[in-house]
């Protein structure tokens, strides 16, 4: 028999899923990012054209999503490094909470900078 979501419905599992999905999403985004930056090879005008695209509201939203993904993956990753390398204590759950909080804070900071 296999498990369904009922077996997975606890904070650490959601943290794992967020970490894996954010990693996947970032991996998909990266090639576009490298391509866009590589356009600078054709001079600053080309880069400016691209930067003007980023003024579109849809792309602004996408940027916020990206920063959130990065923050989630980073803080989730730091949590994992702590779980694997630091002595085991009972504070693991609060570590998850701190990680989520830090991720949100980073996302908000970026969003505020945009507005």
């Amino acid at each position, binding site marked *: *028999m*296999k*498990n*369904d*979501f*009922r*077996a*997975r419905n*606890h904070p*650490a*599992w959601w943290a*794992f899923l967020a970490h*894996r999905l954010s990693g996947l999403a970032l991996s998909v985004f990266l090639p576009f990012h490298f391509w866009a930056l590589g356009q600078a090879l054709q001079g600053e005008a080309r880069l400016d054209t691209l930067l003007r695209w980023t003024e579109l509201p849809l792309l602004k939203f996408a940027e916020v999503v990206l920063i959130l993904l990065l923050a989630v993956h980073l803080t989730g990753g730091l949590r*994992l490094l702590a*779980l*694997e*390398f630091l002595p*085991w204590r009972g504070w*693991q759950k609060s570590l998850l909470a701190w990680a989520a909080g830090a991720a949100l804070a980073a996302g908000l900071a970026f969003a505020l900078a945009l507005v």
Partner: protein
Amino acid sequence: MDMLQVSVWRGAASGGYRTYEVPRQESQSVLDVVTYIQRHLDPTLSYRFACRVGMCGACAMTVNGVARWTCRTHVSKVVQGNAIQIAPLAHLPVVKDLVTDMREFFDKWARARGQFVSGTGATRKSDFARIASDSPGRVAANAGIECIGCGVCYASCDVVSWNPDYLGPAALNRAWTLINDERDGARAERLAAVAGDAGCHACHTHLSCSERCPKDIAPTASIAGLKRAVALAAWKGEL
């Protein structure tokens, strides 16, 4: 009298859920419910139990999707309205109804080198080994030695279902307790046995095992210890 609607898995790999009506009591465990069904409603129901008091782990089943000891699970804690769903433990072949074949669980235990091997040449006739109870190794071992092999962690772990070769939390936890035993003489073999894709490196810290363990053991911590020990051994060229 309130009646519980109890949905129970009948069959083996293929089968289905059959619903039984069981009188609801004020103090009632899920094992009580299963027992009632088998004694009063359907004698063909197969299930496992032994001690009934939370010491042996034999009564582990999937209750409303979560692996639990049924003798230690109050109906009031898990019932949804008046409904309960009872299925066999996940990730193990189903023999019949609520009984699973646990051979693979214990085979993996053996593959992880979960047996003590003396490294001091001591025999029954030797004097006791003197080990400080607060030594770091002993503290680490003690955190994991209460495991009674009930299979709840194995049934709760998604990596077990995603990776058929994965040794699983219980086997790896046992290997960790032995690695931390000062008397152990098979450290190199144990580290080799738990390294790799079937071993500790497949653990993604879902923490489902630690969440569900009825003995409050944290196999995740033991597996993290194994990751560190194996990495150190590889770095030193000992792996």
